């Protein structure tokens, strides 16, 4: 995918989000650190353009909520910038690549510390399969079947497939 393809996919997803939720005023767009940062900012911008309402995005770092802290080296932690109670809001979680689903599991646990959202929806730029948990995305930029040992890089500049460990 080129950056134009990514741009079109994000625009389509923004329209889908508005269509699904009717109003955007109760939406909270939350990007997952660090891959979801730029995508969440762009998505919030597109939602503002479509709806005419000013939308901001926040960031969520799930390092401390991961279930693989003991198995993998510690992830470098980044900061969380959620500044409002999420109770009764509809949260749109934004990430670059959906893979095993474990990051999303950690994010769902983390979100509960900011209140009880009315609903949580998941928006990803790339769904590469290989889920290990019963999690599915609501909005997908591109379904990209991959093998386990491939690495995916998905940014606003485009999407690339490489061999794991060399990217």
């Amino acid at each position, binding site marked *: 995918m080129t950056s134009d393809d990514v741009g079109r996919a994000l625009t389509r997803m923004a329209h889908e989000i508005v269509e699904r939720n009717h109003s955007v005023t109760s939406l909270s767009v939350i990007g997952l650190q660090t891959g979801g940062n730029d995508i969440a900012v762009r998505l919030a911008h597109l939602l503002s353009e479509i709806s005419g309402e000013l939308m901001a995005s926040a960031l969520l770092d799930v390092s401390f*909520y991961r279930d693989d*802290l003991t198995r*993998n*080296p510690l*992830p470098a*932690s980044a900061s*969380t910038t959620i500044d409002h109670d999420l109770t009764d809001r509809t949260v749109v979680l934004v990430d670059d690549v959906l893979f095993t689903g474990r990051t999303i599991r950690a994010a769902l*646990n983390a979100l509960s*510390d*900011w209140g009880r959202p009315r609903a949580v929806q998941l928006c990803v730029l790339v769904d590469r399969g290989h889920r290990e948990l019963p999690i599915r995305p609501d909005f997908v930029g591109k379904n990209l079947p991959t093998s386990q040992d491939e690495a995916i890089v998905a940014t606003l500049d485009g999407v690339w497939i490489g061999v794991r460990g060399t990217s």
Partner: protein
Amino acid sequence: MIDTIRGDNLLSLDELSRAAILEVLDTAETFVEVNRRSIKKVPALKGRVIASLFFEESTRTRLSFETAAKRLSADVLSLAVASSSVKKGESLRDTIATIDALGIDAVVLRHRSSGAALQVSRYVPHVRVINGGDGLHQHPTQALLDAFTIRQVLAERSGTSGLESGTSLFAGLRILIVGDVRHSRVARSDIAAYATLGADVRVAAPGTLLPDDIDTWPVSVAADFDEALAWADVVALLRLQSERGSGTFVPSLAEFTFTHGLTEERSRKLRPETLIMHPGPLNRGVEIDSRVVDSAACVVERQVSNGVPIRMAVLYLTVAGTHEGIAT
């Protein structure tokens, strides 16, 4: 040099590299945010057991370590030494063995003997040992929170953030450490941290309260206290440690205050932007005047607040971390 404390003990700051110290400071920044949430708890150390073993009195260190452990969802075993079998004469080794038999992942130890933390780390090599102050030797988390506090205040003033500034704010920073350097483990850890981070460190004290080997330390000795006050960007006061016999090293407390106490009159020699620090507990009227404690330049309360995120960072890195490598 040790480049990370991930999966390791934290016994002393002498061997820690600049990268290792920076990693703790940066990790603590993320925990500052956790401490601002309405639910101040993350599950990072869920199911881990951390023993808090204080063979010496403590208010700040103990409370902030235990708060830190709980905010990481760890279980805390807290031994009240005064009402334990230590009073029946049980040795340090047997006490540690008993607690280890209950199944622990880490121990925070404070002890009157220098080297106690190192000794315990040899008794229980599978347990992470965090030094909460050992005799005259080291108090690593105090120095880390002191460095964190300095970086936080200076970053705020220059309109940047601690994370962005890295260690740059310490380059050439003029830090004056005043008072009972001889008996102070805080001074030893602070000096190690500040020197590693690139600061210019001086000490000022009555000659009797300087250690005999001061010329081997990475510091210079201030000839004139009053001149040094005007020189300093940060003035770090130390407590006069009566329980370690400081009283016999000065003619009287009043004499110490006269020569090296930060009285209100003397505080006027400081430049307005100079920070005043003290690790606590304070001897008001001895090393610092009450009115100086309550002045805006004094960041003692911030130091206490920062104790929690720093100790969360230390527990997180040592207990959840592994030796295998560092994720990027």
